[in-house]
């Protein structure tokens, strides 16, 4: 009995002293959306390395997957339990946080010498709101049409350089009995990547930006005919059979699998998916990529690539801004960025981190194409206001199933945008 009491007392003493030990450290909470094993391998190592170099800082990291992250961050925001450092997509998704004053202004901090020349302006710009930097980019991504070289060679086809050639290519593949494009639109963000790219090509840039950010007068929002034309073009892809049948019932992952298995000639993939094609049947057959080609005579910009950087924000209410910034500085240092690229297969927004040593030749070429582009047309569903984006998300499915017309969709977008504008 005495022994039991002694052990209990000892255990109680140890437990009581633990909070004391923890209190000696500055705890910085860090929430991101990269829970995949290869990503966690990097983040776990990075946190351990940072904590070893900064023994007074304790990084409490939590990772949830892409979709649950959208729920979790909203719950944390609504309950005012915002982590010190948290992930955000760029564009309107991040601007929402900045608009409501939930992010720390990093404009001055990023003027420090250690930050100079670290990021391209195109990566920083999507994390700016009203001239202030509210986030730090961590990776960059863009969208490309991937093609199966064996299928192209079999039918004597070549990479299109104009949109008209791209249409002709699809017609040729269709005539040859091939499924031109593997497409999974069950989660309708996939549609917004096509539609967003077409909007960028077919609507003048200043008009599109004014619409997306609700800066245009209410009666002029989304009135440019390019929107309807872009939706009609997207719909025609489905109607003509360029996409596989039943795209609305297939996930993006299944579509990617179909392309990998050689059941389609092309698939629209993100740069960060390139590494998934290694050691697959399509890798043996050979694959290449090209951005959706420029559209002759279109009113918008042909020199933009659809894509966006992802990044990290610091909570406006953090009690440890310096420590949080120090961690982000460490995480986006050239050395760490190189480790991030080589460990995860992702790209990095840090200039010089994606090299032949850290990634595949295809990813390197994809990043080069992104650097050569004049800018990015951000993911549509994170760039428009939420209500308007939701209309487009549903319409991406409705246009394919024949339940929506381009005109009706844009009418709904206008109504949603006007309502959001009225509430601001």
């Amino acid at each position, binding site marked *: 009995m005495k022994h039991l009491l002694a052990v209990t007392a000892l255990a109680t003493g140890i437990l009581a002293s633990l909070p004391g030990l923890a209190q000696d450290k500055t705890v910085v909470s860090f929430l991101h959306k990269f829970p995949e094993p290869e990503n966690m391998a990097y983040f776990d190592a990075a946190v351990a390395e940072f904590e070893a170099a900064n023994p007074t800082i304790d990084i409490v990291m939590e990772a949830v997957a892409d979709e649950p992250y959208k729920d979790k961050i*909203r719950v944390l925001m609504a309950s005012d339990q915002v982590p010190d450092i948290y992930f955000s997509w760029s564009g309107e998704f991040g601007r929402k946080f900045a608009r409501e004053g939930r992010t720390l202004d990093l404009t001055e901090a990023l003027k420090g010498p250690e930050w100079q020349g670290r990021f391209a302006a195109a990566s920083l710009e999507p994390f700016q709101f009203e001239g202030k930097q509210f986030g730090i980019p961590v990776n960059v991504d863009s969208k490309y049409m991937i093609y199966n070289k064996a299928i192209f060679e079999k039918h004597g086809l070549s990479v299109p350089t104009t949109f008209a050639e791209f249409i002709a290519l699809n017609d040729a593949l269709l005539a040859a009995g091939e499924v031109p494009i593997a497409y999974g639109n069950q989660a309708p963000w996939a549609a917004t990547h096509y539609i967003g790219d077409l909007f960028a090509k077919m609507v003048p840039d200043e008009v599109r930006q004014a619409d997306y950010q609700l800066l245009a007068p209410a009666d002029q929002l989304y009135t440019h005919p390019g929107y309807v034309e872009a939706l009609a073009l997207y719909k025609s892809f489905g109607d003509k059979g360029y996409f596989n049948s039943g795209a609305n019932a297939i996930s993006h992952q299944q579509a990617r699998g179909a392309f990998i298995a050689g059941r389609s000639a092309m698939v629209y993939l993100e740069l960060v998916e390139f590494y998934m094609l290694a050691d697959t049947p399509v890798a043996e057959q050979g694959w290449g990529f090209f951005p959706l080609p420029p559209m002759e005579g279109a009113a918008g910009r042909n020199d933009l690539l659809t894509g966006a950087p992802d990044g990290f924000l610091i909570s406006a209410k953090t009690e440890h801004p310096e420590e949080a910034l120090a961690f982000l500085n460490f995480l986006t240092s050239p050395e760490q960025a190189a480790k991030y690229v080589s460990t995860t297969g992702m790209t990095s927004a840090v200039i010089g981190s994606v090299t032949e040593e850290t990634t595949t030749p295809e990813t390197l070429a994809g990043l080069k194409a992104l650097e050569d582009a004049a800018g990015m047309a951000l993911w549509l569903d994170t760039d428009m206001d*939420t209500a308007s984006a939701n209309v487009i998300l549903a319409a991406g499915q409705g246009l394919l199933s024949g339940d929506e017309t381009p005109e009706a969709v844009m009418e709904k977008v206008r109504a949603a945008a006007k309502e959001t504008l009225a509430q601001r």
Partner: protein
Amino acid sequence: MTDRSDHSRATWRQSLQGWLWVAPALLFLVIFVYGPALTNIRFSLFSFSAMSLDWDFVGLNNYLRLWSDPKFTTALTNNAVYAVISVTCQVGIALVLAAVLEARIFPDFSANLFRTALFLPSILPVVVVGLVWQLLLTPTTGLIDQILWETGLASWSRAWLGEPDTAIFAVIFVSQWQWTGYIMALFMVAIRAVPRDLYEAMEIDGASGVQQFWHITVPGVRETILIVTIITILGSLKVFDIVWVMTAGGPNHSSEVLGTMMYRAAFRDDMIGYSSTIATVIFFIALTIGLVQIKLQKDR
């Protein structure tokens, strides 16, 4: 006078004891059920987003907006269809299956095999069921499509989850596949409680199996029928997980139900007040069904 006073004191003491016994459960209910329900009703009178800490009082505007929202009509219709089909399958068909398996028509081995096979889906997680059926229903490469092609029924082939006309029915079908066996097991227990003498008496009188079903089994398990019907209707009203996993309410909101609509409003559209309005409507529909159940049980 003293007697009455003692009696009253004893009753009061007994009553207090009773209250003390139920106090923890009552407290739990108030904190986790009634409190949030009332708070939710208050939320429904405001317009606010998850990002912002500013709340705008909008009165009943959220309710007016919901009333004119075409997605609400779609969701309500889908919930109603879900309930009708679920009651038909999970009460009607499950009762018939239970009666057949309990009627000793099949040898014990076959009956046990059927019972296990029918019950098995209900022990699987909904997410797993949803994902597996999603693969089975995949156009072209899915097993269902392959079977249709192989059996000369290619004209029936379609993107079951990708077409607005079929998406909700495909989800409802999967739900019936999962839960009919479970309800059947409940009915089997209820049927076993019906005295065997009654069946034997009717058999001696020359009654057929169908007559025994209508005149002994159905009246004998009517309490279970009522409870199961109410549970099934409430389940159809609250359904969320299987729809979210299989279609997420798509394509183009065609398979939206109240649960997915509420979730989408809160966690995708950042309209917490509007989402609370949908939750309040679900709450009052469920409350009405609950009251009907209490009334029906009292009438017996």
